[in-house]
């Protein structure tokens, strides 16, 4: 047997779990190999040290905390329940659906491989829209001026009509 194989069998050898033939083989190797015999001694020392580790008593504070677990869970439930009930109201379902659609659209815009192109397109469309609105405003401004001119002319002609009427009366 090689030293590697002996290493694999050392715990079983210590615990008496080997078959008689294998046990004799390991014992013979240990008698002839000081390195493996030394390892066996260290292994014995290790298992003794491990077996001698005592159990530690949990502190009274810990025990009190453990006794209070049901109470803590119940308190958490008391706080959690109303929030959960509010969030799961059927009336909020369309809101969640709208948010979901919004998030999907947003994630598409932000994380799509060609997101830059998409954003650029959105920006172009947005600026086009703004331009169109500005044009409408400008046109509306011009129209306003024309209406003012027409109404001023109309008032002027109306006044002139009065002057003419009074002139006819004098005659």
């Amino acid at each position, binding site marked *: 047997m090689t030293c590697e194989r002996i290493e694999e069998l050392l715990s079983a050898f210590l615990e008496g779990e080997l078959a008689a033939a294998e046990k004799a083989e390991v014992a013979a190797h240990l008698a002839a190999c000081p390195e493996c015999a030394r390892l066996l001694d260290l292994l014995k020392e290790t298992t003794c040290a491990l077996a001698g580790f005592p159990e530690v008593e949990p502190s009274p504070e810990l025990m009190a*905390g453990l006794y209070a677990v049901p109470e803590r869970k119940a308190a958490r439930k008391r706080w959690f329940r109303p929030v959960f009930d509010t969030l799961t109201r059927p009336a909020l379902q369309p809101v969640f659906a709208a948010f979901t659609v919004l998030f999907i659209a947003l994630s598409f815009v932000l994380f799509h491989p060609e997101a830059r192109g998409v954003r650029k397109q959105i920006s172009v469309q947005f600026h086009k829209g703004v331009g169109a609105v500005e044009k409408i405003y400008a046109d509306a401004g011009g129209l306003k001026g024309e209406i003012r001119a027409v109404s001023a002319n109309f008032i002027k002609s109306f006044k002139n009509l009065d002057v003419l009427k009074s002139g006819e009366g004098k005659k």
Partner: protein
Amino acid sequence: MDLDAVIRECLEGSQSAWETLVNTFAKRIFNMAYQFSGSRQEAEDKTQEVFLKLYGALPRYDSGKNFTAWLLTLAKNHLIDEYRRTKWEKTQRDDFDERVLAQTAGDGPEQSLVEKEAKTLVWEGLNRLSADMRMVIILRDLQGKSYEEVAEILDLPLGTVKSRVNRARLQLALVLREYRGGTS
């Protein structure tokens, strides 16, 4: 004590049944967490978390199963998951409790010193083991479980458990050899 009856009462909301369950298992879980983490504070936190989980998981417990093994599996999973999630690996464990070492004085002061040194080295050496190795050695050598029980708790084949225990012990033995200067 009829554990199944205690669990049934717990599920019905009995505080005294819960306290019975805590009294029965708190020490075992706390020691498991302490031996695994090497820190009393960490062990207290983890014990609290395990019992919180236990309280939530009790309705899912199948009464036909071994409750102790089921609880130890739950504790083991929590300890290893938390260890991996938080990478909580201290470079140093708490100092080995001197008062406890004093109780185990052997054949005289010299023997006691050797034992104390070995215990301290092995205690610190536990940190060198991987989480899986540490857990297997804790269950087998520190908690004194049989190989079969360890295999049930860890849900591993018996042969794998035996081989892991042997490798873990060898690693700890090598810590002793390293400290004492090779093949002295």
